[in-house]
């Protein structure tokens, strides 16, 4: 079985035996290791990617389900090599990163929020990030990072 989809704007395909998970396909044959595996059970959000704009846990999603759909991973955010997207820039500026392991998932979940709601209240940010665990920062800087991302995105538009 062959699955074809758009990965960060590029058409890709991959052969599948069956129920291989999108996370394993991304990190394995497709060589995109920015998406992390944490708990593997849909609780920590380290594997968050966007599929047609919606946030998904790639660790629970069979790759066969993204046939014909558009998948965005952390590698797809930067507008050009050496540059950062507003969400990435905001996490750097506001200190939303320590060890960095949760960061790709945090940024992908934040981007999904901001795509749907460009100016979220703090309660909305918390609600949008309940599925993402960080064991370093204590979350305060992450909330600040999302606020900063909203501002940067506003400036850029």
């Amino acid at each position: 079985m062959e699955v074809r989809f758009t990965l960060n704007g590029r058409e890709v395909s991959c052969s599948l035996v069956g129920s291989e998970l999108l996370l394993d396909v991304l990190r394995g044959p497709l060589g995109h290791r920015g998406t992390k595996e944490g708990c593997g059970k849909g609780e920590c959000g380290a594997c968050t990617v966007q599929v047609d704009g919606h946030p998904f846990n790639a660790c629970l999603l069979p790759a066969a389900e993204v046939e014909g759909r558009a998948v965005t991973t952390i590698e797809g955010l930067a507008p050009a090599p050496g540059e950062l997207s507003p969400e990435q820039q905001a996490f750097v500026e506001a200190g939303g990163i320590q060890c960095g392991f949760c960061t790709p998932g945090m940024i992908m979940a934040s981007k999904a929020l901001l795509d749907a709601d460009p100016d979220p209240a703090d309660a909305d940010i918390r609600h949008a990030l309940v599925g993402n665990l960080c064991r370093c920062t204590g979350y305060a800087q992450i909330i600040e990072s999302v606020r900063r991302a909203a501002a940067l995105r506003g400036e850029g538009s």
Partner: protein
Amino acid sequence: MHPLPYHRPTSLEAALELKASLPGARFIAGGTDVMVRLKGGAPRPSALISLRGIAELTRSEVAQSARLGAAASVADLLAIDALREGWPVLADAMNQMASPQIRSSATLGGNLCNAAPCADSAPALLVHGARVVLRGPQGERVLALEEFFAEPGVTRMGADELLMSIDVDPPEPGLQTTFLKKKRVAMDIAIASVAAGLVMNDGICTHVRFAAGSVAPVPMRLPATEAALCGHPPTDARIAEARRIAEEEVSPITDIRGGADYRRRIIGVYVERATRALAARFEGSE
């Protein structure tokens, strides 16, 4: 996890034929329970049959009444304005399910077929008298949601059947509803939950619905609690009586998330809180 054969039919007939032709295969919708259990070492089915590509199962029709596709994702259902406006208690319960990532995958049908006592959508659907439409080789049948749950993790759906849709009638005129869920942190599953519906006319409760989660082997209606209030004004004494009955009507267990006595207390508190909050919405409107 070692991959399993994975089939993705695009019609209901094809899905039922695959199920019949593949002994030991199981249906999978959003996969947020099935995948976690498989990774946890649950017995492996011979194959997985995905329901996500079947338009008949992912489509919903919402107008005066609602027919919700069993394989529609919770996020897709939450995006339907008419559903949020017409059945806000269901939207509220679905919006509290897990995380945005899980809601993108997880389906309403999966939440019910998983038959967990803590299924967040169940109390809200019970308050609205929802029915489930099942389809198997023998054709279609309809069950009240109350009759759908048999025991923890087990439904009354046959092995060769699948859940097509969840049907909900128009809300009773004037119905006010609320959903209260006790949890420790935002993403937790419920320690106890109550959904409530109330209609009042001339100061009398004329339609009362309570349903509770995580406090019995299956999500349950609380008919004795309802009867304690129905036909009466919601006086302090009546509410105290309803609260006492509710605490007796549930049969919780003690587990990692909470003690049985604690759960009983929560149900009593929630019955009182819900009744007072809903009754207050009728004040001044009559």
